[in-house]
């Protein structure tokens, strides 16, 4: 791959060589001066060679090529009796040095030029140096320009114009700048970066402008096609159809599309489909359902309003993705750390206990044996924690697949019998929602296994994007005695909050069955209620 910096290195040299040739061809005094031919030929040769090296070799080779080139060009300029053709080349070298090695590079290049073009000829070939000092006057403006251009190169490098800085670091540099901006921006944002809330704001804005009876919002994620993301109003159900031709057209053409949709034999409703645009990209589409066609200017002004919302929504979605990626990495790291560290150490302590028990008297041995049992249980728990940390949803593995995988493993590693019921729609939920639901299910299952000493567990998962529900029920001893604020429950609530879901945790439910705990999570249900309730939120 040719990086932008390599492109600059090649282009700058070619421009300088082209200027050189033009001057040689047009200026008879230069063309006819035989003593200048040697230096000009040397500069053309080293220029072409350096351009070739800059394109084909790594940063280190490019750096030494530039140093050699600077020496050759400077000395050639100094020795040539008619150096006018070579002077433009002096400007290019500090620019490249500045891009490569910042201010020290510029200083070195300029120093070399001054020594090569002024001092060397003074010492070596005094006869070619005009006595009247006109050479100084010729050189000074070029060297001044070279200094300016060199500083510009160094500044560009410091600004981190993508690709111009050190090749391998360019992408890191721009990533660092973006992340720094993100950090300061998120501190300043009043609404934070909550994608669910932003989507609700888009639907609310449409409701305010159009007075619609229902709306739905689709997002294009990496997976091909759209994902239902949010909806509001009692009529939203019929809008959540991915195969709607109006939706597809809106996405393809990136403009507002309107149409009439028949509802039964007597009713017809107007449907407005608006693109959510970020620049030239279509982030998703918003669908609205209303009794009659809206005024054209209302749609136009709404479209502009949505552009602002889209940018925020896009930022929130990117943030979600970054957070999901960062969390996934951290979980893998934690799993490795537990596996290689504490789990092995506790396991080896177990062997120490075995050794003690073997040589102890019977009463002590009995106590040690009990302790050994506890220790084995701790290792077993650590093993399951490692597994918890490692299981995840991915592009290929949806919520249902991840859940059934997890549940099967839990069944294999503990005495719990898990009954899983899946009812998944063909389309996927948003990745952040899938991830949080999986974590809530893991937490609920772990609680049932660890604290409630349950024997059976029923997990029901239903999805119909953007809506979903997850119910985890066990036949254990319930969670009484453990406060509502106990760790696992607080974490489950926090996770549910993050995806704007409601969570109900009921111990001893009034189903007539003794004991047991029910954890029920519902995603995006409230927005399908009447619009009054939504605006009252």
């Amino acid at each position: 791959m040719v990086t932008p910096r390599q492109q600059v290195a090649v282009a700058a040299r070619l421009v300088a060589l082209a200027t050189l040739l033009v001057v040689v061809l047009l200026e008879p005094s230069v063309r006819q001066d035989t003593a200048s031919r040697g230096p000009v030929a040397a500069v053309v040769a080293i220029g072409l060679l350096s351009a070739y090296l800059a394109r084909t070799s790594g940063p280190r080779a490019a750096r030494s090529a530039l140093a050699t080139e600077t020496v050759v060009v400077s000395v050639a300029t100094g020795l040539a009796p008619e150096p006018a053709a070579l002077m433009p080349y002096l400007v290019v070298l500090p620019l490249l040095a500045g891009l490569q090695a910042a201010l020290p590079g510029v200083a070195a290049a300029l120093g070399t030029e001054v020594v090569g073009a002024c001092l060397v000829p003074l010492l070596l070939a005094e006869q070619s140096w005009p006595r009247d000092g006109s050479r100084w006057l010729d050189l000074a403006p070029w060297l001044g320009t070279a200094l300016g251009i060199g500083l510009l190169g160094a500044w560009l490098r410091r600004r981190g114009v993508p690709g111009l800085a050190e090749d391998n670091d360019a992408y890191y540099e721009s990533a660092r700048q973006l992340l720094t901006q993100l950090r300061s921006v998120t501190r300043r944002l009043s609404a934070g970066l909550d994608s669910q809330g932003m989507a609700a704001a888009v639907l609310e804005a449409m409701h305010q402008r159009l007075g619609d009876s229902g709306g739905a919002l689709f997002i294009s994620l990496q997976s091909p096609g759209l994902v239902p993301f949010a909806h509001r109003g009692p009529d939203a159900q019929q809008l959540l159809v991915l195969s709607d031709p109006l939706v597809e057209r809106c996405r393809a053409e990136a403009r507002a599309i309107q149409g009439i949709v028949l509802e039964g034999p007597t009713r017809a409703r107007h449907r407005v489909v608006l693109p959510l645009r970020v620049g030239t990209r279509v982030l998703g589409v918003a669908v609205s359902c209303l009794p009659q066609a809206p005024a054209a200017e209302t749609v136009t002004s709404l479209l502009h309003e949505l552009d602002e919302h889209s940018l925020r929504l896009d930022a929130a979605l990117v943030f979600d993705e970054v957070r999901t990626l960062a969390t996934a990495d951290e979980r893998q790291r934690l799993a490795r750390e537990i596996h290689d560290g504490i789990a092995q150490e506790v396991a080896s302590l177990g062997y120490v206990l075995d050794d003690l028990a073997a040589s102890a008297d019977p009463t002590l041995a009995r106590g040690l044996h009990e302790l050994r049992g506890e220790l084995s249980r701790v290792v077993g728990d650590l093993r399951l924690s490692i597994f918890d940390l490692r299981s995840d949803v991915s592009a290929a593995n949806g919520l249902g697949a991840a859940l059934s995988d997890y549940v099967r493993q839990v069944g294999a590693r503990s005495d719990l019998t898990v009954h899983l019921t899946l009812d998944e729609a063909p389309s996927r939920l948003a990745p952040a929602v899938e991830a949080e639901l999986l974590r809530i299910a893991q937490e609920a299952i772990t609680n049932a296994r660890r604290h409630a000493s349950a024997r059976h567990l029923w997990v029901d998962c239903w999805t119909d994007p953007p809506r979903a529900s997850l119910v985890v029920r066990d036949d254990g001893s319930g969670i009484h005695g453990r406060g509502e604020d106990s760790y696992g429950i607080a974490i489950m609530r926090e996770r549910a909050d993050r995806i704007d879901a409601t969570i109900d945790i009921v111990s001893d439910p009034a189903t007539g069955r003794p004991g047991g705990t029910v954890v029920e999570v519902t995603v995006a249900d409230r927005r399908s209620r009447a619009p009054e309730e939504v605006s009252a939120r």
Partner: protein
Amino acid sequence: MTSPIRVLLVDDHDLIRQGLARAFERSDDFAVAGHAATVAEGLKGFTELAPDVVVIDVRLPDGTGLELVREIRSRGHDTGVVVLTMYAGDEQLFAAMEAGASAFVAKDAPSDEVVAAARHARVAPRSFTAAALADAMRRRMTPSGPQLTPRESEVLSLLARGFSVSAIGRSIYVSDSTTKTHIAKIYEKLGAANRADAIMKAVRSGLLADDLAN
């Protein structure tokens, strides 16, 4: 008196190796021949020391212990191999069995179990034993995968009675496309390719027992 069984311990954690070494030295019929912390060291130790039994951790810094198991198995038929692991799930158990291990022990088991497994491995290196083997086999024979929802069970029983897609849709009051989604999910859950296959698999796993009785 017969000569002791010589054991090579392969684990990258010193404390684990020391604990196991003490456990083996407690029993008179064992002697620890050597230690190794990586796959490469394990292979070197195996070649140089020619131990009777090798105890191998699954996760090693330069590869998986299972590679070492396969390598040892390909070289010597009567060397006992005990696989020791922190990940003691069904998949790991069957993977160890397929690699050619003689025994599989979780790291939360007492050291006596490791010694017992090594003794078994010495006597019958080409057999396989594990504490959770019976349960794992049972789970493998009766997969407790996702169950059908009530609506899917209803659709399945209508399918078994020979209803067409639209007839099923009419009798449970849903559209043809919804019915098709239900059917696709039933096929997916049963791992079936078509209607006949789905019904066969459903009968075999007892999902249609009620319908057949009627």
